[in-house]
Structures are given as structure tokens and as C-alpha cells.
């Protein structure tokens, strides 16, 4: 035990004395979460819009008031003629124009039907789409309001965004970010740190010492397990208190699953280190072989459902995909292990596979 502690202590010296390691360990998670939380987001707030209200009656005023108070839109301009619309779009400040037909209230009350035209600047199709969806939702809502009291004959489709009612993208980024960062810290840092012992030549001395190879590896891994775990907790805390990302399910379960995922990533890091001799090689393999597929194919940024079938198949071999599913289930849906025991088993399977391969590689080298 004394041996083990001496080793772990040494490992911490390495970590805390290397500025690059420190930046990757602690700087990156914070920067990434702020970046993803604030800068890279799909949601829209305070979009500038204009309104051409041809009818100007009590209902159209109510509708406009409702749009204004929704928080999504800033009404920049009230128009009087259709010709002004083209000019506004060309200027580029206005993303959406709402045109309310003449005799809005009259048509609605007498004929139970009326028209509202939504014009969006689709040079950025995603934004246009989102704005149209927001606006449509508000209008439907308004329709429901004025219908109350009269006979509820009209069927009003109600749209609700489950688990993330406000479509806050940061909710999706936090589980993804934890995954990416744990992967990076655990797999990359351990593979580099083991490769460094080989490169410098100290690994030989360690193996010639009474420490068992297994003990050496374990002692190298423990500090990263601890630091990765701290990282996961920091991201969860930042997610909760800065962005309000909920943890609807069981926190202990989430932490346990995180530890499982960290162990999986650590064993992957060990596997990488058994096939590399230098830090450079370990870094390259980790970055190209791990980070890119993890970011691109795990469903973190691009939805797996939208991928070509071949990539969907490949995505099954990305361990991060399974952990993202688990993290989202716990944090957003608040469900328990019965809903994702299969994903959990997949992670266990990956861990066993990587450990077994590492041991095999290690034995070959010693023989």
C-alpha cells in the first residue's frame, strides 16, 4: 500500500508540474462548457421581427401583444404597406415579418377562419425554421385562448417539447460535454503518461522493481480517475448553476455511470499506450482515433438518426454514444437503470474488452 501511495504521489507531481497537462485537465472543461453554453447554441432569443397589421382590431392587437411578451421576439418595426417588407429583408436586420390580413377579428369571429402570413429570411434556413416554429406555436396558443368560451369544435394541435420544453440546447450539450471531456482526460492523458514513461525509459526501471505491472498501471490510472471524476462533478455543477441544466434522475446513479464510463476510457487509454512507444504517437492516436469519432459520431453534435446507414452502424462502436444516452436519460428524462441497463452493459463490455486486449498485448511484450 505504501508503494502504491508513493507512486500515486509521484503521478500527481507530474500532473501538477506540467502546464500543458493542467490546461487540458482543468482549463479545457471550463472553457468548453462556457463556449457551448453561451456561444454555440441553436436557440433564438430576441429575434428582430416586423409586423404588418392591416386590420388593427382588438384581436390583432392582442396577438401582437402576445408575441411581444413571449421573449423570443423583438418587434423592431410596424409596417404600413407590403412594399416595405422587401426593403427590410434586404437591409438584413429583420428575420421574420408577420402579416395580419384585413378584418382579422371579424373573419375570425364570423367565419371562424382567417389568414396570417409569416415571411422569414431563409438565407439561414435553420434560424428561419426555428423562428417559424416559435411564431406558429404562439399563434396556436392565441387561437386556443380566444376559442375558450365558445364551443371547442376546432382541434388545436398542441406542440410541447418534452424534457427540454424550451428547446435549450445547453441541456443537450452538458451530457455530451461530460462525455467528451471524460474521454479526453481519461483516455488521452493516461495513454500519454504511460507512453512518457516508456519514452524516457523509466518504465523499464519500474518493471524491474518489485511493483507488479498491474500495480504500475493501476497506480498510473488512479490519479486520472480521481481528476476525471472531479471534472465530471464540476461540469454538472456549472451546468446546474450557470445554465440551469436539471438532474431529474438519481445523482448517485449518474455518478456511478460516470465512473463506469471513466473506467472504460482509462482502459482504452491503457490499450493505446500498449501499442505506442512515444508521447507523440499516443497523442495522435488519441486525437485522431478517439476525439474526432467521439465528437462527430456519438450523437453529441450531429443526430445519429440523420447519418447515412453505414455511419449509424459505426456509431455503435463509439462508447461515447452509449454514455450520452445514459446521461441524457438520467439528467433530462429522470428515468432509472431499468431504462438503460442495456447501454450500461455495453459500456461494461467495452471495458472488459479493452482490459483483456491490454493484458494480452502486455504479455506479448514481456514474453
Amino acid at each position, binding site marked *: 500500500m505504501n508503494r502504491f501511495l508513493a507512486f500515486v*504521489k509521484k503521478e500527481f507531481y507530474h500532473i501538477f508540474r506540467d502546464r500543458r497537462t493542467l490546461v487540458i485537465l482543468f482549463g479545457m472543461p471550463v472553457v468548453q462548457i462556457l463556449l457551448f453554453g453561451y456561444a454555440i447554441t441553436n436557440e433564438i432569443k430576441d429575434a428582430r421581427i416586423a409586423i404588418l397589421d392591416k386590420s388593427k382590431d382588438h384581436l390583432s392587437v392582442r396577438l401582437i401583444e402576445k408575441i411581444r411578451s413571449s421573449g423570443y421576439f423583438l418587434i423592431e418595426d410596424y409596417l404600413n404597406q407590403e412594399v416595405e417588407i422587401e426593403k427590410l429583408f434586404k437591409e438584413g436586420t429583420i428575420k421574420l415579418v408577420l402579416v395580419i390580413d384585413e378584418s382579422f377579428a371579424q373573419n375570425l369571429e364570423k367565419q371562424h377562419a382567417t389568414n396570417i402570413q409569416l415571411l422569414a429570411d431563409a438565407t439561414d434556413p435553420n434560424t428561419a425554421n426555428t423562428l417559424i416554429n416559435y411564431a406558429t406555436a404562439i399563434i396556436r396558443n392565441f387561437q386556443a385562448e380566444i376559442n375558450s368560451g365558445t364551443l371547442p369544435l376546432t382541434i388545436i394541435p398542441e406542440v410541447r417539447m418534452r424534457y427540454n420544453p424550451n428547446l435549450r440546447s445547453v441541456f443537450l450539450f452538458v451530457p455530451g460535454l461530460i462525455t467528451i471531456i471524460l474521454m479526453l482526460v481519461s483516455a488521452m492523458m493516461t495513454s500519454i503518461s504511460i507512453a512518457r514513461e516508456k519514452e524516457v*525509459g523509466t518504465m523499464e526501471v519500474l518493471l524491474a522493481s518489485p511493483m507488479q505491472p498491474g500495480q504500475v498501471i493501476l497506480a498510473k490510472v488512479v490519479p486520472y480517475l480521481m481528476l476525471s471524476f472531479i471534472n465530471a462533478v464540476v461540469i454538472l455543477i456549472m451546468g446546474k448553476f450557470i445554465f440551469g441544466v436539471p438532474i431529474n434522475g438519481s445523482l448517485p446513479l449518474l455518478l456511478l455511470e460516470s465512473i463506469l464510463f471513466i473506467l472504460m476510457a482509462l482502459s482504452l487509454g491503457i490499450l493505446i499506450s500498449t501499442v505506442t512507444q512515444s508521447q507523440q504517437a499516443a497523442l495522435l492516436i488519441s486525437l485522431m482515433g478517439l476525439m474526432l469519432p467521439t465528437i462527430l459520431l456519438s450523437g453529441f453534435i450531429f443526430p445519429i438518426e440523420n447519418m447515412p446507414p453505414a455511419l449509424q452502424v459505426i456509431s455503435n462502436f463509439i462508447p461515447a454514444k452509449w454514455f450520452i444516452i445514459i446521461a441524457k436519460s438520467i439528467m433530462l428524462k429522470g428515468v432509472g437503470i431499468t431504462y438503460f441497463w442495456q447501454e450500461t452493459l455495453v459500456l461494461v463490455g467495452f471495458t472488459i474488452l479493452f482490459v483483456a486486449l491490454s493484458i494480452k498485448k502486455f504479455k506479448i511484450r514481456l514474453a
Partner: protein
Amino acid sequence: MEEPIIYAKDLTKKFGDFTAVDAISFEINRGEIFGFLGANGAGKTTAMKMLIGLWKPTSGKASVAGFDVYREAEKIKKNIGYMSQRFSLYEDLTVVENIQFYAGIYGLTNQQIKSKTTGLIEKLGLLEVRDSRIQSLPLGWKQKLAFSVAILHDPKIVFLDEPTGGVDPITRRQFWDLIYEAAHNGITVFVTTHYMDEAEYCDRVSIMVNGRIEALDNPSTLKKQFNVDTMHEVFVKMARPQEA
């Protein structure tokens, strides 16, 4: 007659078709300084790695400190010290931290670690740099420290793989003072080198050529046998017979 502390009989290591170590046999006695000579690539390091339990031999027999290299590698590791060719200290740790780390992984108690650390720092005159990182020390100091660390746990045998690479003859001489002291204290020294001035310091030497031990005796007998004045000339005749 005391049992040899290192014993090898027809020890062989093959990597595929290539025979790195070809049926070498020797016996080394307790307290001896044994020079394991050979050109680069002659198989010295491979042979040493089999003896310290890093690699399993392909065939042959060997025992170190009375333990079999096939079955009892873990017991061997407890009884030996090892200083590798490429330097065994951590550059980003201080002198004291390095000593404490190695003392720690060899299982010394806290009490022992404390007294050994103070003793070693005094002996090597490192008091002023005890909290400096290794990377700031001159190579000669690092090598002396690495050697002292390798014998910190009082092993029966210390294996040194080209311990003095890259330093001048005077620093090498100082390094050898430490080796003599260790041998005097009963530690058997097994040292590989290709510096022939170091070969002169050994009690006995073996010369390896292409995986085989071609000569094994004390330096003066070897010199007599080849009718030359220095070990360097012996070595040249052995390793490159076509030039001689």
C-alpha cells in the same frame, strides 16, 4: 564453494528468426564486479533483461540470487537494483522526491525512507540542490544519484546498463568509486559497458560478439592471452577480428 549469485547456462533469446542471445553460460560470485562487454547490438541489454525478469528467455537456464528467472521473476526483482541505459530518474521531480519515490516503490518504511534520504543527500553532497528538479543537475550528478537510488534498498545485486554514457573519463572514475564502495559492502555489480577504460576496473569481464560470449576472464589474463596492453585492444581483436 559458495553458490554463484548469478548463474546462466545456455541462456538463449530469439526474436523470430533472429537470435539476439545465443546460448550464453557464466557464473558470477557474490561481491564481484562483473563487466559485461560488447559492441552495440551484441546482445548485452537483451541478456540483462532476461536476468532481471523483464523478458522471458527462449531457452536455457538461469538463476539470480538463487531464484529461477522463469518462475521466480518477482522474487528476483525484490533482490536486485537496476539502472537503465536511459536514465531512471524523473526530470520533473526534485532530488528528494526521486529518492522518496524509489524508496517507496521498493517498500521501505517511512522511517527508513527518512534516514536514507538524509544520508544519501549528505553523502553525495546534494544538500544545496535537494529541492531542485533533476533536469537542472549536470549529467554526472544525475548518474551518481541514479546509481545510489538503485541500491537504496540494499539489493544483493545491482544491474547497470551502460551507466556512464555521455560523461567524461574523470566523472566516470568518480562514478566507479561509488561502484567499488557498493561492492565493498557486499553488493554484486553486473555492469554492461562499451567503454574499455571501465572494463579495466572490473574483477572479471565477458565479451559478447553477435549474441555469443567469446571470452570470459579477468582483465589481466585476457590481456596476456591476446598479448596486448589494454582491454581496448583485446576488445578490438575480439569484436572485429578481420581488422586485427
